[in-house]
């Protein structure tokens, strides 16, 4: 976020005692500390609220950098992601291994985390903490990579937020039923179209960030993967090797098909 916007948010948080009103809901039950509650809940919900009050869909921060635009003109810098069918043919464990190997640029989905917890025999909490710790360590190895990671995080947060809004809009339209010409419906329809367009732009931005990140060679060290899976490093080595062999075979088969 540019410093100017961050400053806007800072001012918003303290204006009309917003932050203090929310902090009042903290009861201190069960030993939860205020700091964590503040960081992940209060500030996050204030951020969402602040985003919602902004009338337009972030046209400012959606501005593309010149590098973005040149990437558009010259076509994507690498082949477009292969058909999702290939991803679908992989077993959940294999998908998890691939994500673990690229932990710096991929976040684990809820199902991945559950699977990882099961495989490692850890509680979900300890699994989530271990992943976060490894991700943080990976990010601290290279400043440029860490910057990209931060940009990716904010693009991701934006996507989550707007997708939820799109879901809500679509749901409202569904509830409105068949009255096609009501002003409310037209307003919702405009909103939906704008959200979809903005989402498409953001997804493009996110793909470009990912492509940029892939120019850095940062795979998760095997010992970290082994730690996450609670398995010996040797097992990780052979799992990754077998997975790559399988991918190469699948890729060959896909290319052979007309």
């Amino acid at each position: 976020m540019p410093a100017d916007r961050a400053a806007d948010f800072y001012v918003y948080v303290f204006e009309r005692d917003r932050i203090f009103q929310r902090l009042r809901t903290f009861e201190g039950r069960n030993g939860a500390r205020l700091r964590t509650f503040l960081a992940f809940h209060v500030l996050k919900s204030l951020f969402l609220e602040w985003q919602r009050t902004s009338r337009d869909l972030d046209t400012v921060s959606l501005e593309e950098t010149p590098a973005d635009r040149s990437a558009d003109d010259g076509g994507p810098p690498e082949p477009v992601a292969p058909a999702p069918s290939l991803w679908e043919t992989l077993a959940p464990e294999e998908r998890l291994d691939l994500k673990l190997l690229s932990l710096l640029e991929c976040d684990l989905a809820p199902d991945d985390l559950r699977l990882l917890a099961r495989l490692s025999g850890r509680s979900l909490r300890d699994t989530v903490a271990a992943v976060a710790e490894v991700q943080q360590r990976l990010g601290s190895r290279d400043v440029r990579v860490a910057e990209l990671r931060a940009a990716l995080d904010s693009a991701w947060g934006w996507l989550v937020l707007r997708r939820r809004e799109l879901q809500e809009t679509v749901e409202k339209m569904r509830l409105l039923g068949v009255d096609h010409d009501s002003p409310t419906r037209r307003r919702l329809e405009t909103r939906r179209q704008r959200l979809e367009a903005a989402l498409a732009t953001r997804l493009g931005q996110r793909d470009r960030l990912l492509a940029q990140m892939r120019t850095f060679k940062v795979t998760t060290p095997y010992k970290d993967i082994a730690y996450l899976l609670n398995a010996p490093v040797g097992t990780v080595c052979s799992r990754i090797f077998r997975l790559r062999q399988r991918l190469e075979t699948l890729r060959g088969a896909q290319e052979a098909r007309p």
Partner: protein
Amino acid sequence: MTCPDPGVLSQLLDDELAPAEAARTRAHVATCAACGERLAGLERASALGRRLAGAADGPAAPPGGGCPGAEDLAGWAERRLPAAVFQAVETHLRDCDACLVEAVAAVRATLPAPAPALAVPESLKARVASRWSAPEAAGRGGLVLRLVRAGVQLVDRHVVAPLLDVEAWAVPAPAVRAGEDRSALGFRIRAARAEIRASVVPEGDGVGVRLTLLDDRERALVAQRVVLRRHGRAMYSARTDAAGTVQLPRLEPGVYEVACPEIETDFRLDLRR
């Protein structure tokens, strides 16, 4: 050297070999066509895997029912919950995607911040300071300028250090339509190395504000950004013209902040009916 196990080639790709072994393996691959081909295949597969993993994501499922409160999630993230409550949260997270996403955020919030704290930008300090009136003793309390005519009655100004001085004087309205009796107010804000001259003219229900930015030798400051904010949100932004002037849009009564980031000057305009 005999051909290495293909698994070793895979490790080579990920920088997992000891330096000596990596060098030996690279030297061998350079001379052995079969191993070169194997390594290339593994490299393709590795790139493909990375793309697949990166492309995989989708909208998270909406929350179900009976979700734990934020405080319990915070306690869970810190592992401070009593065992029974902890287990209840764990069980819930096994089914609820939305909560698990929240939970990941909660855990991340418990990690120590990796980067050194960022310095607070001067413009933010100035903005925050502009929201508080300085103690009277410092001689920079809010100054109230009164306009007698209809339209604007009060121009209340809070300015921040390093502003040095404010002067107010009555100026003739730059353009008055026949039969209309208008008066305008001008004031001058002196900062360390710059000066802002403002004229405020009633316009219907609101006011027009024109600002001129000058440097310390009274030369126009050209192409300076001027941002107008209301309730902390930017509503107008423009750059000064060749004369150092910028005309703000007609303002309704209310409280505004004017920021000129390039000369590090912010002030608040309080326009009341």
